[in-house]
């Protein structure tokens, strides 16, 4: 039991699994350079050599196919993409190849392949470095998709992903890298399925993904002052999606806001809402509300960017609408504190 940042938790997971299993290796564009993928691949080259952690040419489609080839011949590759947007270049390998190979071989081959894709937000990076896309990945059978929101999950889920015989896409939010928390030991893994209750409450359920859990916590504080007890459910896994935990919460609260780091139409909130209305038809006192990106391209300019990305304020407003509460004064609230802390290039 140690306290680590999310960044170091990711790094520790890689270190431990590479130590335990020589078939694990890490590769991708820039994984080996001095920036070390925001520090998450620190010391891997030093400790395991350039054969087990190496930077590559720029060729996403081939890099993902490469991982498939390595995985079905005894390796456990971990491929890193600095932005999930770049993974769009490899959608063919992901949706046509990596996910189908086990099925197509009649189960003779398994594909223990981890892809880490980083999402993030802000700082004017605009519309080609802004996406999140979990619902797109979740739509493809045969792919596990997880979004750890805490250092404990960052470590535990990545370790579980590496040990898993299925392809797993781990989506990490760059803004979480500085978050601190207690993480598990060498032997501990965190399940790749199942939502978890981050904060108990009785009046309203907020189901959140990734960074939106941080916004949800903030929203819960604000709403708490107005006497609303929010239960926050960290969705954790996009596919398979655990609606049971969320439904249990909603059965209790009767209200639900889904807060997702992605576009709303055809997004994760749609799937969750569809399932919640099915499972909680009688207990839901109002329709599920969805909060996410504005359905447009991410703009560069800060004031517009702030409108593009959802935050605690929007969760509060959604909750108020559901509960028919008068809007609280958000004037004094510090909404883009992280974004203000963050300076320059990316």
């Amino acid at each position, binding site marked *: 039991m140690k306290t680590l940042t999310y960044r170091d938790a990711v790094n520790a997971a890689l270190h431990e699994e590479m130590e335990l299993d020589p078939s694990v290796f890490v590769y991708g564009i820039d994984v080996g350079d001095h920036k070390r993928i925001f520090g998450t691949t620190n010391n891997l080259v030093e400790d395991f050599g350039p054969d087990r952690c190496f930077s590559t040419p720029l060729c996403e489609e081939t890099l993902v*196919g*490469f991982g*498939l*080839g390595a995985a079905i*011949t005894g*390796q456990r590759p971990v491929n890193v993409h600095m932005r999930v947007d770049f993974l769009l270049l490899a959608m063919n390998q992901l949706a046509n190849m990596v996910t189908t190979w086990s099925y197509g*071989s009649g189960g003779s*081959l398994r594909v223990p392949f981890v892809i880490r894709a980083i999402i993030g937000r802000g700082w004017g990076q605009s519309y080609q470095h802004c996406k999140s896309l979990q619902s797109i990945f979740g739509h493809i059978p*045969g792919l596990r998709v997880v979004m750890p929101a805490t250092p404990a999950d960052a470590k535990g889920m990545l370790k579980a992903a590496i040990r898993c015989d299925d392809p797993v896409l781990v989506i990490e939010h760059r803004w979480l890298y500085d978050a601190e928390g207690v993480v598990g030991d060498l032997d501990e893994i965190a399940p790749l399925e199942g939502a978890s209750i981050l904060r108990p409450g009785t009046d309203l359920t907020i189901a959140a993904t990734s960074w939106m859990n941080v916004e949800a916590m903030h929203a819960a504080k604000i709403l708490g002052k107005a006497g609303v007890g929010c239960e926050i459910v960290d969705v954790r896994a996009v596919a*398979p999606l655990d609606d049971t935990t969320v439904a249990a919460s909603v059965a209790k609260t009767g209200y639900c806001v889904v807060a997702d780091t992605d576009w709303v139409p055809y997004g994760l909130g749609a799937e969750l809402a569809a399932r919640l209305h099915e499972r909680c038809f009688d207990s839901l006192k109002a329709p599920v509300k969805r909060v996410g990106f504005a359905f447009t391209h991410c703009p560069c300019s800060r004031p517009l960017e702030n409108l593009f990305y959802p935050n605690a304020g929007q969760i509060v407003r959604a909750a108020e609408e559901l509960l028919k509460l008068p809007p609280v004064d958000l004037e004094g609230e510090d909404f883009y504190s992280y974004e203000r802390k963050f300076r320059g290039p990316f």
Partner: protein
Amino acid sequence: MEQTLAVARQLYRRMYLIRTAEDAIVKRYHENDMKTPMHMSMGAEAIAAAVCLAIGPDSLCVSSYRSHGTYLARTLETDRFFAELYGKCGGTADGRAGSMHLSAPEQGYLGGSAIVASVIPVATGAAFSLKRLGRDAVVAVFFGDGAIDEGSFWESLNIACAWRLPVLFVCEDNGFAVHTPAGVRHGYASITDIVSRFRISAAETSTTDASLLHAATQELLADMRAAQRPGFIRMHYYRYLEHVGVNEDFAAGYRPRDEYEEWLAVDPVTTQRTRLLEAGVAEDWVAEMERGIDAQVAHSIELAVAAPFPDECILFRDVMTNENVDIS
């Protein structure tokens, strides 16, 4: 000499098997029981036979949707082959894969793909494994002249060369992608010339003589091993049948029948048979082997026809390791 003869026999066994199996497909396809799109290897038998034999049993291979040849040359078996084509239990994936996705991982044939060029990156990853494990083996990847249009061919060529991976790129060149000729698709005169400027051993051939193809492949493999780098070989052949399906398609007008007849005059299977006899192999031995294969194929088809269709429950099997997961 003895060895050459042994190789020649093995080549012929593979080629005759491929031809016989495909002849049977042609004969029975109209019954409409093999409900899977057939991309026939007919005319290309020598390539699969030569390459699969040359790389040896420790090597691996991956292929495209046009993979009957590769599968059969690699495995020499037809029970699972026909069961798969009939969509039955006992097939390579109990009927879930079909003609375009045959595989035999336990014999080093990792599988095929119906997305053009998509297995080429897979080959680089498998070759990386072989290299890490220190194996003296290669990954042969089979693809058509259409696949070289796709970016992933170039990306994979680049990383295989940059990282000195033991990949043998085999371009099975029939001059067409479906019905579009290579000439209008390629902005260069010779792919082999271009590829040879990478850090690779490169070769090209247009013979239908399997023994020559085998020798060429062996030579290339020796060069690859000596130079510790990948290899590329372009092998020209003529696709006898339509792009997909079991019929001739000369009436369509995009290629003349004459061409076919020229190639047919040097048909790989009959060429190899003649070779064997010329080299002194007894006609009896050949005929005996052929009868054995005829019987094998006939028997496999009987088994496949008689086999049950797969049980419903396998529809969801092998999608994820834990099938109990609630995934809907």
